[in-house]
């Protein structure tokens, strides 16, 4: 039995089979997608850590009203397994941090905070990582438009 077959019923039973959907690896590169509420994030992370998965990366997509937080978990063993966990958050609400449980989440969450402004409650050191510490904007949000206050010239590269 592959890990995918093993974990699918466990996830379906613990987190609701309506939240779990099989994906075609050949199309999108991952096997399972799980939509999750933010309260159950730590529980899921603990489960996956015990199942010897590793946190590949955390990212976010600005969908306008909500911010989709995406966590990708993978495995080192064969056959390959990748799970995408999607936590849809309204902007401005903090999410529990995985950094104390899985150390790989430390910098990944800092980057999501830096780029999107998403706060992670319980993170040991939530501060900006890529932008200067005194930056006052979150660049990957859809409504971010750099202006003269961000310095540098605005170059118009349109061809007339």
């Amino acid at each position, binding site marked *: 039995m592959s890990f995918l077959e093993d974990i699918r019923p466990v996830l379906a039973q613990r987190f609701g089979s309506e939240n779990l959907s099989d994906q075609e690896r*050949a*199309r*999108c*590169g*991952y096997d399972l997608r799980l939509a999750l509420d933010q309260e159950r994030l730590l529980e899921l992370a603990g489960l996956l850590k015990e199942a*010897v998965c*590793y*946190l*590949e*990366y955390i*990212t976010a*997509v*600005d969908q306008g009203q909500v911010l989709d937080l*995406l966590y*990708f978990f993978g495995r*080192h063993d*064969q056959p*390959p397994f*990748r799970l*995408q966990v999607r936590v849809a958050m309204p902007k401005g609400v903090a999410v529990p941090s995985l950094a104390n449980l*899985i*150390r*790989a989440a*430390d*910098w*990944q969450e800092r*980057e999501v905070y830096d*780029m999107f402004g998403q706060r992670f409650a319980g993170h040991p050191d939530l501060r*900006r*990582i*890529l*932008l*200067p510490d005194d930056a006052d904007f979150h*660049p*990957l949000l859809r409504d971010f438009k750099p202006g003269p206050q961000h310095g540098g010239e605005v170059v118009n590269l349109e061809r007339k």
Partner: protein
Amino acid sequence: MLRKTLTEDSFYLNLGPQHPSTHGVLHLLLKLDGERILECKPLVGYSHRAHEHMGQNRTYLQFLPNTSRMDYLGGLCYNHAYCLAVEKACGIQAPERARYIRTICAELNRISSHLLWFGAYLMDLGAFTPFLYAFDDREDILAILGEITGSRLTYSYCRFGGVSRDLNQNFRDGVKAFIPKLRKRLKDYRTLVTKNVIFLNRTKGIGVVSPEQARDWALTGPNLRACGVAYDIRRAEPYSVYPEMEFEIPTATGGDCYDRYWVRMAEMEQSLRIVEQALGRLPDGPVKTAGVPQWLEPPAGDYHFSYESPRGHLGIYFVSDGGRVPLRMKWRTPSFNNLSILSEILPGTLVADTIAILGSIDVVIPEIDR
């Protein structure tokens, strides 16, 4: 009888952002007690050039030159990964010949990246000779790759549907001459460096990472394989022509600096094997699929693609809404997680060991900062 009149305090030392032994602009904030490190905080972001933001503001083809600038030592690998990712989303299949050519170029790029790492690492440790020899070998590769790509360092050679230009006779001759030359050189490096007692003293037992630590910190690439975990995306999630190639995944068991060095040297041998096989089996045919539109519009949805770059697990994740410009383009670069482990393994070591450990992780900072 001397009495200590000064209290011994710890002090903060900035290693970087400008320092000869950092590989790019890395800033390590070290809390030192004499020569021993108490705390280490890597500070990154000094090379942040807004690649992901550009990804949201550029069409898929316009973003292609950015890929090489992210990891400039593995520029062709990033080109390859990006083209594979977008092609998979759009359902484009590159012709057989193009897939072989891409593999040859990616493996040559991997060798040149490891050679540069080798030279720079030993220069950090104080040995200047390997640097000069490694760069000489690397120049051969750059000349070979420059024949068909036109560039030495930052390539935009792969296209959606293939590559931009076919191989020529100079390329083939160059590779055929280079393979035995590098094999002989690798033997020289083994004699000069691998058996060198100073090198062994500086790297054996230094910076040990256990497999559990590696998994916890999401360490990938040669760093992970040096801990004993045989995880290589080329075998785990094969792409391109790797399923047809015979090569091994070198793995070591110690997880220290020496093992990371050893894994990379062994990987160079394996890459030479792959190049040899691919060049021998190169089929005829076109190098680019006809009919690929200039503006690609992948179907709406999100796509992930994994690739084995010289530094580890490269992940490309993009979200498309069916338009020409992606909604979101995320690059999971291996050095991002590889560097973060320093805050755990550096405390307790000496400053000189810090340089050895930092060099052995093989980070490229613009890849972290994107």
